[in-house]
């Protein structure tokens, strides 16, 4: 097993370079906590450096192309592309007999591209809903891939071991030549995005306008889909076919929370993707038998959760705080208006307020106390009266609530 060897080699070299050897672990959860010396290995250890570079490239490419996919509501096309790569990988192996990653990745990319084309054909020539078309292609391609994979495994071909690493990814198998491949594939994708940035931007936000300007919308769509295929190819070895979709969707969705500008969103998306890729791959490379895909996806999910809840302006926590504040303000204002009506009739006491608002007297007392702490009412021998500021405020509220401007009767 290639991966086992690579990890062992990485571990065995560590003490020779003067790092403290980590003691043998027993608890299964322990590998999730990286020690400082292990983190330093990124820069010195050959295996870990390749793993980190490869996953960072995946994060950047996936993040950039995912941003366009999410904006164009084509997130799940990425899922189909990734799942559909499996039969391509297997067929490439059967036809060429080699396990050279580049050959397998090309096979996977071609199969993904074919699946995307078939989805478009089905959508254009039948009335099948889009989600069903995606689901059909995804599951039939993947099923065919599984059948081919088991066919290869049962044919007793000694060199087949390791093909199933493409299902959930195994970052530890990434070597320097793979990193070079990723750089070329990802570099091409990023270059094309750079060249056609203006067109892609227009296509994402206003395809009808793009069409009216005479841009080849269908060609550009095909180009973007093909670039997504490149991103999937970069990710197959690291994350695997099943979970690759998350690397296209989650970074972009997280980045969207932080900004309203496309440039910033793409940059952040690439950054988040790279962070998740590197941390997930490193955690998985420290221990045997840990598939990389799930760890990368979980790291990405953590980043997404933080973004959803705490991103400035759009974060859910701030939403909740704003809603709470608004509710409190509205409640107090309605209270003041009730108090104002009673005040106008000259009988603002806890009892009358309780009756008007159909609430217990104790609650009415608390409410009056709240109004008094705001300086809107004050105590009076017959109960309570509105202060001048309270009256002023109530007047303003009444004016604001009026649909028709009957200004004359408003003041009391």
């Amino acid at each position, binding site marked *: 097993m290639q991966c086992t060897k690579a990890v062992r080699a990485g571990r065995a070299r560590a003490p020779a370079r003067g790092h403290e050897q980590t003691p043998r672990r027993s608890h299964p959860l322990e590998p999730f906590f990286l020690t400082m010396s292990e983190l330093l290995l990124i820069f010195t250890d050959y295996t870990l450096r390749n793993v980190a570079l490869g996953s960072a490239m995946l994060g950047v490419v996936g993040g950039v192309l995912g941003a366009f996919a999410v904006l164009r509501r084509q*997130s799940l096309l990425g*899922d189909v592309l990734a799942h559909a790569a499996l039969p391509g990988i297997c067929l490439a192996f059967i036809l060429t007999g080699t396990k050279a990653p580049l050959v397998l990745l090309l096979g996977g990319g071609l199969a993904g591209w074919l699946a995307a084309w078939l989805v478009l054909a089905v959508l254009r020539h*039948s009335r099948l809903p889009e989600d069903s078309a995606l*689901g059909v292609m995804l*599951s039939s391609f993947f099923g*065919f891939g599984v059948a081919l994979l*088991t066919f290869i495994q049962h044919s007793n071909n000694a060199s087949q071991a390791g093909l199933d690493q493409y299902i959930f990814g195994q970052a530890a198998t990434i070597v320097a030549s793979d990193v070079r491949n990723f750089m070329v594939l990802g570099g091409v994708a990023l270059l094309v995005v750079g060249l056609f940035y203006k067109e892609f931007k227009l296509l994402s936000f206003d395809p009808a306008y793009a069409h009216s300007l005479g841009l080849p919308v269908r060609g550009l769509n095909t180009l973007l889909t093909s670039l997504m295929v490149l991103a999937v190819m970069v990710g197959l070895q690291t994350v695997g076919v099943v979970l690759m979709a998350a690397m296209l969707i*989650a970074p972009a969705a997280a980045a969207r929370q932080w900004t309203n500008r496309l440039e910033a969103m793409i940059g952040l998306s690439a950054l988040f993707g790279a962070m998740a890729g590197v941390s997930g791959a490193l955690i998985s490379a420290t221990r045997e038998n840990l598939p990389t895909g*799930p*760890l990368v996806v979980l790291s990405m999910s953590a980043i997404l959760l933080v973004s959803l809840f705490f991103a400035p302006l759009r974060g859910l926590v701030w939403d909740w705080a704003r809603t709470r504040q608004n509710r409190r303000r509205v409640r107090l204002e309605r209270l003041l208006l009730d108090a104002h009506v009673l005040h106008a009739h000259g009988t603002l006491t806890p009892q009358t307020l309780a009756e008007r608002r159909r609430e217990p007297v104790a609650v009415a007392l608390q409410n009056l106390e709240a109004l008094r702490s705001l300086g809107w009412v004050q105590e009076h021998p017959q109960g309570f009266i509105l202060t001048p500021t309270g009256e002023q405020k109530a007047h303003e509220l009444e004016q604001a609530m009026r649909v028709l401007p009957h200004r004359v009767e408003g003041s009391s």
Partner: protein
Amino acid sequence: MNADLVIILTAILVSTASALVGSFLVLRRMALLSDAISHAVLPGIVLAYWLSGGERATVPALLGAAAAGLVTVVLVEWLTRTGKVKNDAAIGIVFPALFSLGVLAVSLFFRNVHLDMDAVLYGEIAYAPFNTLNLWGREVPESWLVMGSLTLLNLLFVLLFYKELKLSTFDPGLAAALGLAPGALHYGLMTLVSFTSVGAFQSVGAILIVAFLIIPPATAYLLTRRLPVMIALAVGVGVVSSLAGYALAIWLDASIAGMMATVAGLCFTLAFLFSPVEGYLTARLRRERQRLEVAARLLVAHLAHHDQPVPEGEVLEEFGWNPRFLKQVREKARQAGWLEVVREGLRPTARGLAMSSALLEPDP
């Protein structure tokens, strides 16, 4: 008991149960939500497996998976409702995260035990004959019992709530206005999808369930426009692809579930190309035939205005057709008995003249 029989009947039950609920998923445009559910049942199964002390027990697994499935649906709906993420992206975010948790738990805690990754991916329908239960003194395969009850449950659900399902699928607004509780129906359907997913999980694995849930109903959708016919056809396509897939898998020594999904995909391709309703090739053929028919009538009407036979060269110039098309049109018209070819050119027959006058001066 015959091992082939056990496997085949299990596969038939899986495809029947899936097609029954899957038809509504396709019609309600929730195909990908079911994809998400089928991935997300994995952590539910793992949790149930862990809680029951490493034994594979069916009832806790069903409950755990149903819970996980509902968590998925609720999470996706919640994410969509916050407005921070679009619906499709929400699906694509939730299920990889849950599935990752499941895969990680399997590889950390259950490596090399009963619940390994191969089972998650490919299912183990081949082992169905070995898991038997003693029921009233007879050995019954566990998969028959599980999938049989699920098929029955789905069938009962569809039969009992047929009217409600139909209405809320095609007109949710009216269903809600009539007080049919579309929300309850929605969650009921989702629960059944989760149940079916976990029941089928043991047989065909987590990812290929979608093939059984979506492909046969989508195929049936292309073949008919009537709901009862669609459900029946979906069950039929599912059963046929199970049988053919099993035979192919035995022949090629490949994954049974994978082959079944492959055959289902082929069925879909055939329906897409040749469906009598709107198949790609049938529609093209029909369009081509109609084009010729219109051109032939046009040609005869043109000839009817001339006293002499018209040479073909003149017709070509008049209509701007290419010679090959004219030949097709001429043959078409001749077969219909509208024109005859004489030495000077084309001349309409009596039938052709009658047709053209009927064409140009329709009866009041």
